[in-house]
């Protein structure tokens, strides 16, 4: 049974992603929308964390190695209480802690600077090892982009992870999730540099691999359960996702990797995310003040 609460949160986060990117006028909607169900499940169904104590030593860690999708991370962090949701619209603005890519020093709750692709997995190995050495029960979740794993450093880390810390401190506290949305900046992944057979590659490097639908909240939760139950080695989850998921004109289109919607496009995107047919939109907005406020705000941007 899908968790209705998580579905609602993921939907609200999608709306906020569109909102903040439109205010910013730049950013990466496609990969933010593909990863948001994974992040929602982690932040609201999984993590042991305390937004009031972002430096709690035994917190679970999330490293968003595909740092360009950080708008998605900001939405779940805001909703968790790391900072007020009103701050989301400061994304990419001068002086905002919501940098265009994650900045650990600017925003408590960000675990590592990422966005220069290929580096988050190595940092996650270090985090997982450090926690193991300290006898902490905390877990580390690292989210990789599919295009990202074309970076060589990922494979250095992939080769090391099942071996590092053995035998006393195996990194079974590490779960790596691939947001496999099949599109990178320039084009479809298979047209730039095909990753297949991606499962076999990670298996050959010594990882147990679980393949799921990265938008199915039940499947995500189950995979995370399996990863947590696995002893002795870290787990790799291939989450098949749809780039731009939830917005018809963004889905599966490389053009929406790194382009912010215009206000009119954003309003249409929000309507689609909320599943409201066009004829009923005015009526919906009349009854939903929060959405109405967001739409009015975007319409005002359009007027500018």
């Amino acid at each position, binding site marked *: 049974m899908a968790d209705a609460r998580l579905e609602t949160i993921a939907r609200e986060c999608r709306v906020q992603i569109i909102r903040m990117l439109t205010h910013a006028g730049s950013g990466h909607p496609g990969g933010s929308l593909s990863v948001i169900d994974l992040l929602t499940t982690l932040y609201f169904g999984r993590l042991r964390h305390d937004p009031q104590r972002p430096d709690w030593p035994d917190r679970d860690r999330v490293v968003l190695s595909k740092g360009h999708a950080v708008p998605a991370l900001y939405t779940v962090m805001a909703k968790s209480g790391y900072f007020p949701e009103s701050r989301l619209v400061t994304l990419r603005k001068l002086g905002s802690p919501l940098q265009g890519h994650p900045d650990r020093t600017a925003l408590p709750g960000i675990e590592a*600077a990422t966005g220069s692709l290929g580096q988050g997995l190595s*940092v996650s*190995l*270090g985090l997982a090892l*450090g926690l193991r*050495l300290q006898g902490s029960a905390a877990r580390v979740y690292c989210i990789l982009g599919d295009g990202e794993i074309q970076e060589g*450093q990922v494979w*250095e880390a992939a080769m*090391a992870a099942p071996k590092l810390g053995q035998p006393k401190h195996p990194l079974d506290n590490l779960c790596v999730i691939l947001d496999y949305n099949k599109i990178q900046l320039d084009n479809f992944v298979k047209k730039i540099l095909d990753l297949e057979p991606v499962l076999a590659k990670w298996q050959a490097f010594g990882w147990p691999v679980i393949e799921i639908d990265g938008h199915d909240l039940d499947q995500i939760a189950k995979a995370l359960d399996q990863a947590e139950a696995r002893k002795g080695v870290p787990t790799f989850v291939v989450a098949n996702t749809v780039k731009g998921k939830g917005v018809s004109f963004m889905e599966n289109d490389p053009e929406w990797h790194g382009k912010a919607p215009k206000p009119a496009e954003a309003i249409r995107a929000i309507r689609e995310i909320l599943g409201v047919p066009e004829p009923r939109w005015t009526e919906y907005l009349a009854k939903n003040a929060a959405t109405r406020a967001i739409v009015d705000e975007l319409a005002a941007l359009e007027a500018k």
Partner: protein
Amino acid sequence: MPAKASRAAFGEALLELGARDDRIVTVDADLSKSTMTTKFSKTYPERAFNVGIAESNMLGIGAGLALTGKVPFVCSFACFVVGRFETIRMSVAYTQANVKMVGTHCGVAIGEDGYSQMGLEDIACIRALPNIPVVQPADELETKQVVAYAVEHEGPIYLRLTRQNLEPVCPPDYRFELGRWLVLRPGNDVTLIASGGTVFNTLEAAKRLDADGIAAEVINAACIKPLDEELLLRSVGRTGHVVTVEDHSISGGLGGAVAETLGEVMPMPLKRLGVQGFGESGDSKGLYAKHGLDPAGIASSVRKFLNR
């Protein structure tokens, strides 16, 4: 004290500090015999990690360990550590991870292995990052103090160490401080600023210059970033001439740092001695002679610079 390589002094210091501080861990990339972390790894096998020939991964793992409160020393040849600059820039510097980066085998002085193993651009690269001190000790005493300092320093730091033995140059009561240089020999005619492997030769050069009636002040600049601006200005304000001596590319190293500061604050005649072009295979002494970093070469450059 007999001559000792700063990498060897580092290995000894690490073992000693590791006994008192269990936050200290090492991460190596298949060069632990050369970086001399082996003493530590034999004594504390559970705190020593060899990740294979994968320096980017080594740096990232170091960053992650640091973020859990460990004090990781990530060690390889200077060229291989700093060669992974993008990982240093992002996972160490920008992340503000408390990583102690150790680059050994700096300069042409490594000799026979040739250019591919010589750290010659590492100072220039690291110096461009806003939050990483660059420290190059000149002898065993200084190295041990620098390593102890690195453990206590909050934040990333880069230590540049030699393969070759270094003659003692610091007085027994010397105490290292970040951003503080040391006058090893006073003089009024020219300021010679050296660091690491070139300090001893610069002192020898000063003796030769003395015989010619040139009183050279010799400064040991262990801290290349931050440099000791106060001492620099005090010394060169008096001598009016400055020569930098380093086993590093002539661009962007100690000489570059000194030139940047003086160019803004106190422009004056300046000569940078260092490595021009690529390094090559050969014996250490021969290479120093070729690049003018031996006592005779340094003295000759200084005379020419002073028109004497």
